């Protein structure tokens, strides 16, 4: 139990360190809509939707655009989700006193 918690915490710390160090060096989003003026006043969501439906499959190689977005363009968000999952599992194991 203690070992699992310790592992989770080390992974979390490693993730935080990795994000802090790597994000300072490399920009997160390489691909952005090329001509942002053409979409008029629709704003960022419209432009992103257009961009994903036009270039998403070719850029990510995934036919399922949902997967292309949550593991390709916004994989950072998924990293956060997995951290939440690991922490919640560790919390349940801790408070139920599992062995």
């Amino acid at each position, binding site marked *: 139990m203690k070992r699992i918690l310790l592992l989770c915490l080390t992974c979390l710390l490693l993730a935080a360190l990795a994000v802090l160090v790597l994000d300072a060096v490399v920009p997160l989003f390489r691909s952005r809509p090329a001509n942002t003026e053409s979409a008029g006043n629709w704003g960022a969501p419209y432009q992103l939707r257009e961009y994903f439906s036009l270039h998403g499959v070719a850029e990510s190689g995934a036919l*399922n655009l949902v997967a292309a977005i949550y593991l390709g363009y916004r994989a950072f968000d998924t990293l956060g989700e997995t951290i939440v*999952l*690991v922490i919640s599992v560790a919390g349940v*194991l801790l408070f139920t006193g599992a062995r």
Partner: protein
Amino acid sequence: MKESKIVVLVSRKLVPYILLFGLYLISYGHLSPGGGFQGGAVLSSAMLLLCLSRGVAATRRLFRYRAVSAVEITAFALFLAMAAAGTALGVSFLGNFLPLGRIGEVPSSGFILFLNLIIGLEVGAGITLICYSLLQEE
């Protein structure tokens, strides 16, 4: 509580197919609706069925607590490793560094397939651990 023969038989026949369906959802996640989280939930639903029909102790003899928690932690570490490998290979943090392959086939879109596998294992193992700890008999 008395064991029901029907429940035991049906769950024993059903669990392998549920696990297979979960693996299908995970491995075809980049081609069709599904993916890591959904497939992992299906995997853990098979474990939940085993826990409810055969008891937690019997299930834990089949899938050891230690092994399941090792899968959980290893999958998370692999996710971080994949994320860092993108930077190491000069793409970006969590960037796709594998070849895309031919679009529409199962081994395509390099990175996304592996991340789906990793996330599916992690979600399945995590919810299985929660089932173990919440359903265990005193």
